[in-house]
């Protein structure tokens, strides 16, 4: 039989079919698009290895190597790790002694606040989602709509009273306050997502277990929970990405001790223009990106399965 494939197919492209397999040709195409899309991030990462003069150079210094002579010398910078050390300690006055910038504390705060609030939202939200999914509550849909609505509201609507509330109750600048607030931010999303997962499970297995005398708690722990692990992972990633970078509330509600990295980053930026220490800022962002990037990468497969929200027809 003659080879009827077109030249494109021989190169590794397949006819578009929505789902399906494609070869190395498609990989090449996707790689070009992905790298162009990733370019602004790549420049941030490269800038973190540049000195201030190199970051502001005209013509721009693009790469750390000449790529075996391919790139003219004027576009090449010599990479330095200075920015990364000065994230944590640097001299504020020229020639002065290096002082700690407190960024180790801010990184700890970001990790502690984001992970605690996302996990708390995951625990509370999963219980609530199970409740909504398995028990007929009066006005079930109304509750769910109200819960979703709280996510839809512009942050500016609640920010004034939240500031006042935190000021009066003494929660301002405490870990507890900001963690509870972020938990509340993550809850609507967590509940909707986990409910769609519980809704997809077949109730037959649970009924069989109940007939065998399993308690409600055991049914939840041993039968339902193991089946929604992918959903838990996806919800965790989404919540983490959103909480990790939250800026407005963190700016207004965290104190010196509880400041998160985005707020500290904003203060490190200073006035803008030439005054910004580009290499330093890039180093902060690069370090700040690593944890959430790794978590997303390792939970990536679940992420894709997790976002279907149950809106997809079965």
């Amino acid at each position: 039989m003659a080879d009827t494939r077109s030249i494109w197919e021989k190169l590794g492209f397949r006819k578009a079919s929505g789902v399906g397999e494609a070869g190395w040709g498609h990989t090449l195409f996707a790689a070009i698009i992905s790298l162009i899309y990733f370019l602004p991030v790549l420049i941030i990462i490269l800038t973190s290895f540049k000195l201030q003069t190199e970051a502001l150079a005209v013509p721009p210094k693009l790469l750390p190597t000449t790529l075996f002579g391919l790139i003219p010398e004027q576009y090449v910078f010599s990479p330095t790790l200075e920015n990364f050390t000065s994230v944590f300690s640097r001299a504020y006055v020229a020639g002065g002694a290096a002082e700690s910038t407190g960024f180790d504390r801010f990184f700890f705060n970001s990790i502690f606040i984001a992970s605690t609030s996302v996990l708390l939202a995951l625990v509370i939200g999963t219980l609530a989602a199970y409740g909504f999914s398995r028990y007929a509550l009066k006005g079930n849909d109304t509750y769910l709509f109200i819960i979703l609505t709280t996510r839809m509201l512009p942050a500016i609507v609640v920010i004034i009273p939240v500031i006042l509330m935190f000021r009066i109750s003494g929660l301002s600048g405490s870990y507890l306050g900001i963690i509870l607030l972020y938990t509340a931010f993550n809850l609507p999303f967590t509940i909707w997502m986990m409910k769609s997962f519980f809704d997809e499970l077949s109730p037959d297995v649970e009924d069989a277990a109940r007939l065998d005398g399993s308690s409600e708690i055991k049914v939840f722990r041993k039968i339902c929970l193991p089946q929604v692990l992918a959903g838990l992972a996806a919800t965790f990633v989404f919540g983490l990405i959103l909480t990790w970078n939250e800026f407005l509330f963190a700016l207004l509600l965290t104190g010196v001790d509880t400041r998160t990295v985005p707020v500290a980053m904003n203060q490190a930026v200073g006035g803008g223009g030439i005054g910004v220490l580009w290499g330093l800022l890039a180093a902060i962002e690069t370090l700040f990106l690593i944890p959430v990037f790794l978590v997303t990468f390792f939970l990536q497969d679940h992420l894709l399965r997790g976002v279907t929200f149950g809106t997809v027809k079965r």
Partner: protein
Amino acid sequence: MTSVALSPPAPDFKTIAPDNWKLAIAVGLVVSVLATLILPANAAFWVVGAMAAMVAASFVVNAYRRHYYGGLLVSPAIAVLFVMNIFPLLWSLGLSFFAYQSNQQTIRFVGLRNYQQLLTNDLKAPELWANLTNTALFVVLTVTAQMIVGFLLAVLFAKQFPLRKYLLILVLTPMMLSVVAVGVFFSYYYDPTFGLLSQVIKAWGGEQFILMSSKTGAVAGIVFADAWMWSPFVMLLVLAGLVSVPKYLYEAAAIDRVSGWRRFWTITFPYIRGLLMLALLFRTIEAFKMADLVILLTKGGNDTMTISYHVIRIANEQNKTSEGAALSYLLLFVVIVLTNLYLYIANRRSQGA
């Protein structure tokens, strides 16, 4: 209230009985409103807090007495949401009926005057209209761009191919960046002297290129940064839909020699329609709130003020708390109308299909 709380946990009884937590909410609301009207702000805060705790307690007791596991499971979530979301909302709704400035001690009840002033005087002011039209412009442009780019990226990654996992994470990265870094670094890319964009244009023989010097350029710069950052979000949703299409449908279509265009509309589109609408909804709401990128890139200059930034200025920088709250509620009204319009259209479509 107590009589209901002590009632036996008869399953028939709970459907017709006036639920005690409802009564608790009613009492709580009345006391809270009275407290806010009569007591000073600090005392009123704790009274309202106590009322909220009472409502929560009645909720839990009610659920426990009746072996109402659903209610028990839901109550922690409701409690957190109430304290951190719903309660501040009610508070700001209350504030919008007062004349209150957060840097002054005085507070005065003015009824609907804040709203009246907004709807009669301020809406006539060209400045506020400009903010509203700018917001509308940003919503339309950013959401359109994100939907198109996100959709195309999703199609690109819908198939299985070597290294897919590693390329996909590259495209997802912009979403993980801090908005502060995105704003500041895009101002770096757009900078007229050392910015890459300007240097590239110069190298191609152009003159010094200042993107942010005109309104068109400033809007384009902001829209580009926002669309770049959030298109991966749309992509993830659409991709989840594309991946969930059963393969046998495409195989059947291939046997019947269905054209690519028709295959998309009859097979693929029904699977991603819901997710596309969801992405549209989430991104529209987010775009409506847009302030941070504007603050970082133009500080509202070149006629790029958005309504959300305007509220932040009024409420935070000028300390006009009540006016900010009133304006927020007008905005909220618009968002709820838009949301319901969306839900109505989405429901009608799905019933029609």
